[in-house]
């Protein structure tokens, strides 16, 4: 789960990570009131969406008067912001963050993520702040300092020294400030089951203070149960409505831009099904894992969500029945076609326990747009052909 910048900064404040003063606004009037309260003389008007690259997309702007705060707020609030992380469709800006302007001398990068290879959190720092860290990692990997910190020993002095010497921070007072900040960030990461924390840019002011100018945080969904305060920060308007609806029914859904709807049990097979469709010259419209149960209700819900996408020309149901028997799934599919109006061809491949019985059930039902397939390759080929025919 991701949160907004203004929420991340509330958490930073709890851990003593310095940030500029700012107040969230949901209307232009509120933005102006907030700006007056902050006092100026410079303000930053920032779009609050769950994606990076907001500045480049025109979602972060500097205001030098209250009038400018008003004009910029009118411009940004309600705009559809497109960044390299939102996809071409962009994201609607529904909240603003009005913040004090800061005196920027240097821009750095500081973040904490899980290092999957070393199986522990790694603190990443760079002198190349203000740029996409992916680009820095790609073009100048030597400019990223990585310090893995084993939670069994926690953040030690040497971790801090590796960071400041790696960054070339020579002033002793500045070293102390930076190390304190990095230690606080690590503590925040562990205590809140974060998945990713990123401060980009972390600025150094003319006085040699480090301030988090931005803040991005993501949390481990599996651990939200023990962090009700974090869970309360969820902004469902930032999430894909179909993905959210699917998850309420225990389905895992991701929409894609192709034509063949997929309904599969298991995440790996679901991806493999998309890959096979692509390999055979078709395009998958979605990823959908119906999980282990795959009964009439979940299948019906799956059909409903897939068919919301107007691009879908055929649906490929690919189930490998293990503990759940195929004959029961076949009945579930037939029942689901009664619950939902399925107006495109449905290619059904059922393999595993009781597969022959399932094939018999589908054959007997004799529904015009339900086509049985013998295996994965056969099913994908039939789905691709059906989608082409529908054009």
């Amino acid at each position, binding site marked *: 789960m991701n949160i907004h910048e203004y929420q991340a900064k509330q958490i930073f404040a709890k851990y003593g990570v310095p940030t500029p003063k700012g107040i969230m606004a949901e209307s232009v009037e509120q933005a102006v009131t907030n700006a007056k309260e902050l006092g100026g003389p410079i303000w930053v008007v920032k779009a609050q969406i769950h994606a990076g690259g907001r500045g480049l997309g025109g979602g972060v702007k500097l205001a030098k008067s209250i009038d400018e705060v008003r004009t910029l707020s009118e411009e940004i609030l309600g705009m559809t912001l497109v960044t390299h992380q939102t996809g071409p469709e962009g994201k609607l800006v529904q909240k603003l963050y009005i913040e004090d302007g800061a005196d920027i001398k240097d821009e750095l990068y500081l973040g904490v993520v899980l290092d999957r290879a070393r199986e522990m959190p790694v603190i990443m720092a760079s002198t190349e702040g203000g740029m996409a860290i992916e680009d820095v990692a790609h073009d100048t990997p030597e400019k990223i300092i990585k310090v893995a910190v084993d939670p069994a020993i926690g953040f030690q002095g040497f971790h801090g020294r590796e960071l400041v010497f790696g960054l070339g921070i020579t002033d002793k007072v500045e070293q102390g400030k930076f190390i304190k900040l990095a230690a606080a960030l690590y503590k925040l990461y562990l205590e809140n089951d974060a998945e990713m924390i990123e401060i980009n840019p972390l600025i150094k002011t003319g006085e040699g203070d480090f301030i988090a100018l931005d803040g991005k945080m993501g949390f481990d969904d599996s651990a939200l149960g023990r962090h009700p305060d974090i869970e309360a920060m969820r902004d469902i308007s930032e999430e894909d409505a179909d993905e959210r609806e699917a998850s309420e029914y225990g389905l895992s859904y991701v929409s894609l831009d192709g034509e063949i709807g997929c309904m599969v049990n298991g995440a*790996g097979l679901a991806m493999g099904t998309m890959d096979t469709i692509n390999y055979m010259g078709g395009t998958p419209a979605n*990823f959908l894992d119906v999980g282990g149960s795959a009964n009439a209700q979940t299948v019906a819900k799956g059909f409903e969500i897939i068919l919301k996408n107007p691009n879908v020309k055929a649906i490929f149901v690919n189930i490998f029945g293990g503990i759940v028997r195929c004959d029961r799934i076949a009945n579930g599919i037939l029942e689901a076609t009664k619950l939902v109006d399925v107006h495109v061809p449905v290619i059904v491949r059922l393999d595993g326990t009781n597969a022959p019985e399932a094939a018999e059930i589908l054959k007997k039902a004799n529904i015009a747009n339900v086509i049985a397939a013998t295996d994965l390759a056969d099913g994908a080929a039939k789905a691709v052909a059906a989608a082409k025919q529908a054009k």
Partner: protein
Amino acid sequence: MSILVNKDTKVIVQGFTGKEGSFHAEQCLAYGTKIVGGVTPNKGGTEHLGQPVFNTVKEAVSSTGATVSMIFVPPAFVADAVMEAADAGIELAVIITEGAPVRDMQAAKAYATKHNMKTIGPNCPGIITAEECKIGIMPGMIFKKGNIGLISKSGTLTYEGANQVVKEGFGISTAVGIGGDPIIGLSYKQLLAMFEEDSETQAIVMIGEIGGDLEIQAAAFIKENIKKPVVAFIAGQTAPKGKRMGHAGAIVSGGAGTAAEKMAALEEAGVKVVVSPADIGKAVAEVLAK
């Protein structure tokens, strides 16, 4: 032979009397797995599925001599259960539960490693040595005995792969579902080494997916150490960046962990890489015909 488990392996179940634990333990018993007991706190001294129930793993181990534990406890209690198993001297913990917090698994795995306990999972179908011992939730009947070792991050792709291998006239020695979480126990590397040593295994199928770099590490390891033919499929060639595809670990972040880079590394290591899981069986027949 086979790897890790066989017909003599003694298994206990943590979370024995719960709904999932009961159902799958019963299926495993029916398959022939030597489940010799289970652990559910406060139910010690009772009997379940004809086997004794204990309050602690220590008691279970000392009275049954079990070396493997199959773990079905709810996500929030997984780390506790894994560490208890390690502390009690269990040699292999098979963690089926999905949704354990990453931080918990980090600590649990570090502790298990310190106690020389191997782990499989979490969020996995388990391990099966065909026609001998099933420790997990896979449909046993599709795993006909044979000479192909199988390692997979995905449950249903394990079944798909095994099914195709069998349809081609071959069979499975041992199949291991290693799980789709960001931090998992035994990985390709260790299992590849075990299959290389196993006289019963002639070829290895490895099924990976986007996210992380375990498959890349495996490729480097295969190049140096594995003589037996390997067939690989990597799921998620068509997955968009930055989106989590069902499994907690299946995500391309910052452009790293793509299917393309994993496939290229494996091919470079001499692995027969297939583009669709539908080709796994045929590829196995091909590499064995050589």
